């Protein structure tokens, strides 16, 4: 009972502190709010739509073996009698119509001139023997990609689309070569059938070229309006940020609340507590309970506030509860652990500026690296060196709807971290006041 009294007293003091309230609740929500309005406005204004890249095509392909690709597998559903037409159809397809605007040139010179005069940003020149070279075992099918050297994003997107298409076609070419090793090289009809078969298969696997470029996730499989899609994209950006902010500041709260042990020592109220008929175990338990309850209140309030203000989907109740428990235990025990190494509150500046900031940033690397797959993979690994990283991982798992069994593992790891921090911290404090 006395432990609870001490905890409630500490919480009253914490929640009366303007500084504490700002750092516990206002700052995490404010930072997320800034991202929300920044990206929200962009989404509402169509800010995510890049300006269309002007592409001029000189399709000079005169054809090779006759083949007919199944129209349902060609973007736009149109027929293609040559490889050149196939490329044109892909670039004219509705799926990437928002990204590029296609026009045509009668010859290569006109196409290059359009780029030189900045009428177009990219010229794609398909040579006359493109289909023939493609079907020829020893042939080399090459497309000329001519771009404005001052531009990067638009031409980069077109180059990416073309590269992915050509990668797929490389597989087809290998198949053609293998077939021609076994058959009469002049059997264009058979070659056409093989090409058609592989094209059908290849194109069927990549029905939406845009999907290869943008990783847009949506929680619902139901058809969504443009506004809903924009909102989902916004949430996919700010949800990890909010989660990261919550974890970052929960660890700060754990450390600053645990610092009340040192603060009370300096204010001489801790020695006075030791003169009352209250055991040292009870006093320390009360202090630790205060840390735990304060972080718990912070996490619950932030989860609910973020849900109400930003509409963040944290995941199902059980998952969120598991992660919240992990965050609360790890943040509070980490605070006790770190403070047990301090001699006085003056050293707290080093604690907050150094240890917590560095471990916090390390833990959130995976969030900052979301946009870069390679960096994200490395970030995921590095962030797991600190408890904040495991907490972030747990939240991401919950938000992406991963099974509870996966979350249990993450929570278990957090609890193991917590047990280690707690044991060392309490041992050191007990020894200090023995």
């Amino acid at each position, binding site marked *: 009972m006395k432990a609870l*009294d001490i905890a409630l007293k500490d919480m009253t003091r914490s929640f009366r502190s303007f500084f504490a309230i700002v750092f516990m609740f206002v700052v995490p929500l404010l930072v997320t709010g800034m991202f929300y309005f920044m990206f929200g406005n962009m989404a509402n204004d169509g800010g995510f739509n890049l300006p269309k890249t002007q592409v001029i095509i000189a399709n000079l392909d005169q054809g090779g073996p006759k083949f007919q690709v199944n129209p349902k597998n060609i973007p736009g559903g149109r027929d293609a009698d040559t490889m050149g037409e196939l490329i044109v159809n892909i670039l004219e397809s509705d799926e990437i119509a928002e990204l590029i605007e296609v026009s045509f040139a009668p010859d290569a010179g006109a196409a290059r001139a359009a780029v030189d005069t900045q009428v177009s940003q990219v010229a794609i020149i398909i040579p006359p023997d493109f289909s023939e070279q493609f079907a020829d075992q020893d042939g080399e099918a090459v497309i000329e990609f001519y771009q404005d050297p001052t531009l990067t994003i638009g031409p980069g997107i077109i180059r990416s689309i073309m590269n992915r298409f050509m990668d797929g076609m490389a597989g087809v070419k290998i198949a053609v070569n293998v077939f021609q090793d076994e058959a009469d090289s002049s059997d264009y009809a058979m070659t056409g059938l093989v090409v058609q078969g592989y094209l059908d298969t290849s194109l069927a696997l990549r029905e939406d070229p845009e999907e290869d470029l943008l990783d847009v996730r949506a929680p619902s499989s139901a058809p969504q309006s443009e506004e809903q899609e924009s909102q989902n994209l916004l949430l996919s950006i700010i949800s990890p940020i909010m989660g990261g902010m919550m974890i970052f500041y929960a660890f700060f709260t754990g450390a600053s609340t645990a610092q009340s042990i040192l603060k009370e020592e300096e204010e001489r*109220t801790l020695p006075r507590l030791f*003169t*009352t008929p209250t055991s040292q175990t009870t006093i320390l338990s009360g202090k630790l309970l205060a840390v735990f309850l304060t972080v718990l209140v912070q996490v619950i309030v932030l989860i609910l506030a973020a849900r109400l203000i930003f509409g963040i989907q944290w995941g199902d109740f059980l998952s969120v509860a598991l992660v919240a428990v992990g965050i609360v235990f790890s943040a509070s025990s980490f605070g006790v652990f770190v403070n047990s190494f301090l001699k006085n509150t003056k050293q707290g500046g080093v604690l907050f500026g150094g240890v917590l900031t560095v471990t916090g940033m390390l833990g959130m690397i995976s969030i900052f690296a979301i946009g870069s797959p390679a960096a994200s993979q490395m970030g995921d690994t590095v962030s797991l060196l600190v408890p904040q990283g495991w907490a972030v991982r747990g939240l991401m798992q919950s938000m992406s709807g991963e099974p509870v069994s996966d979350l249990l593992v993450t929570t278990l790891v957090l609890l193991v971290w917590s047990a280690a921090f707690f044991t060392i911290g309490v041992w050191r404090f007990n020894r200090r006041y023995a």
Partner: protein
Amino acid sequence: MTNSPAIEVLDLQRSFGDTKAVQGVSFEVRQGEIFSLLGPNGAGKTTTISMLSCLLRPDGGDAQVMGHSIREDPMGVKSVLGFVPQEIALYEDLTARENLTFWGKMYGLRGGALKARVEEVLDVIGLRDRAKERVGKYSGGMKRRVNIGVALLHKPQIIYMDEPTVGIDPQSRRNIVDSVVTLKDQGMTVLYTTHYMEEAQELSDQIGIMDHGKMIASGTHDQLVKLVGGQTRIDLTLNMEAGAVLEDWRAVEGVTQVSAEDGLVTVLVDDSNAVLPRLFDVTNRLAARITSVDILEPNLEAVFLHLTGRALRD
């Protein structure tokens, strides 16, 4: 006051590294009396009181507080005493009432009894009207009163007060001294530490004089004064460095001790009327001039000077 002891201290010892803060201190405090530990800063008073309140574990010796050993039964000791620390030990971001309520809980009070006692103590310390204000907004004197009020919450049999008047204005000091007398009148045993001779002299039934971690004398005021043989103390200042006259003054008939500190020369004499003219004669011969004279009847200051050869000052 009864003859049964409230506190019995036997050969208490405590060191901090190589520093022996308390060296074999023994004394006894009877129930209902005020016992003052008097001594300069660093004498070992706070270390002694910290051991008696179970904040520090003694290296040697023991003490019984209302029959509870500070070594064997610290919780028993804590349950019968109230402790007023030297510094203000309160939560400044809580109100006076919240502070008292919290500390009352730490002393085991609950429910209606706690609530009633908090109001009683607020009346005792005269802060009921301002009980809703945060302690941080109080003046130093008001904080001191709350600091004392906390120690009274559970109606302890013994109260320890560790230099409660340090650094406060004369009016607040007067209030605190008066409140200590009131506590004694209510039958409480008070262990009081101070380096102010006047407080010890005014308040105490028994006085223990400490220096360098040792109890150098103890007894009633009259008993202690007898140690200096009823000598009178004369404080003098000169128009020149005191060092020039010290040796000659020591040779004056009737002078038993001479010391100088910060330009003030303290002389212990048997008969001030007889000795003072001789001191003026000697001073004149040395071409010096006495600029002020203060004659003090035998007191604790003189006792301390007699016992240690030093004045009882910071």
